[in-house]
């Protein structure tokens, strides 16, 4: 058992690949993605029913050391500032299986 940080990001699906690039550059060892998440925030409703993919979010979470987590948070800020979204940090215990 190991104390780790979980970083959660919600971002417009159009920018998913860019967000994942940022995660990888920040040195995370893995991530999990849920595509086609809906939501509401400052920029209004993302109801996901357009023929365009313009109104859909993606949800990403990654589990990593605190240091990496802070780096992710720092690196992803400019993207979120530009296109909106959400970034959260929380405590989890990772159950190693290897």
């Amino acid at each position, binding site marked *: 058992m190991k104390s780790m940080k979980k970083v959660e990001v919600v971002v417009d699906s159009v920018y998913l690949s860019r967000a994942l690039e940022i995660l990888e550059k920040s040195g995370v060892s893995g991530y999990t993605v849920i595509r086609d998440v809906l939501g509401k925030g400052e920029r*209004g409703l993302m109801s996901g029913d357009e023929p*365009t*993919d313009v109104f859909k979010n993606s949800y990403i979470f990654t589990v990593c050391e605190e240091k990496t987590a802070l780096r992710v948070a720092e690196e992803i800020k400019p993207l979120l500032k530009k296109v909106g979204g959400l970034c959260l940090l929380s405590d989890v215990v990772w159950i190693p299986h290897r």
Partner: protein
Amino acid sequence: MGIDLLLQNVLNPPVLLFLLGLGAVLLKTDLDIPQPLPKLFSLYLLIAIGLHGGYELSKSGITPDVLKVLFLAMLMAVLVPLYAFFILRLKLDIYNAVAISATYGSISAVTFITAGSFLNTLGEHYGGYMVAAMTLMESPAIIIGLVLLSLFAKRNNEGINWGEVFREAFLNPSVYILMGTLIIGFLTGEKGWKAMEPLFGVLFKGMLAFFLLDMGIVAGRRIGEIKKVGLFLIAFGILLPILNATLAIALAKFLGLAKGDAFMFSILCASASYIAVPAAMRLSVPEANPSLYVTMSLAITFPFNIAVGIPLYYFFINMLWG
């Protein structure tokens, strides 16, 4: 405008299914065509129109007349976003003006298809190369829009990534699939089309009707946002298509296009993109508000063209071509 033309357009299952979809939302019925089913229909329609256009092109060959149409298409694809931009700048900031003008400079394949089906009902037809013209007209507005942006906006931090812009413009899925199936239809000719016709020809009108049901729902969902769009943009969403169509008809008459081709060309110019361009704008101009350009294209211009524009432009053309 002849009332009978209007009726002839509306009393068609595809258009009525569009209205049924609209009504479903206005009456709050929970009717929904969940993703990715609409994607199935739109892919089908693109492939069908590409294969058929390519086949027609293989029969007609690439004649001077064809080149004339393609030239006109390029011309309008460059002109429309330019004048649209300066009209929009009267009231809007640069970012939204760019995004909206690119949206209206490009085309809507489903409007094109619905118009084709209307023409069909009247017993007239258009050349397969109109599909090539449509493909040509999808992309330039994106480029023009971003050139305008880099000329007029002073973004502090970053320049435009032109490589990505060109990929978004010329290799977005709609352009790619239309272009690709057009070539396939051209290469495989009569024999290829005979093999594909049972799916991609015979079922075409039914699939269009099915898809328009979904488009009605989607447009209906956006209708609530129209009031946020404001009077100026509502007027723009109806008047610009009419202006574009008028210009297109004038040019078509001047260059001597055939009647059916002129009609389809006016439709292309009058229609606004709601798939390719919005996706590109969301990526390249995040400062613009997608609620504006998507709502205008989907909830104002698309229904207007489907219900009123198609018979209206045809009415003009009928007067001029006789």
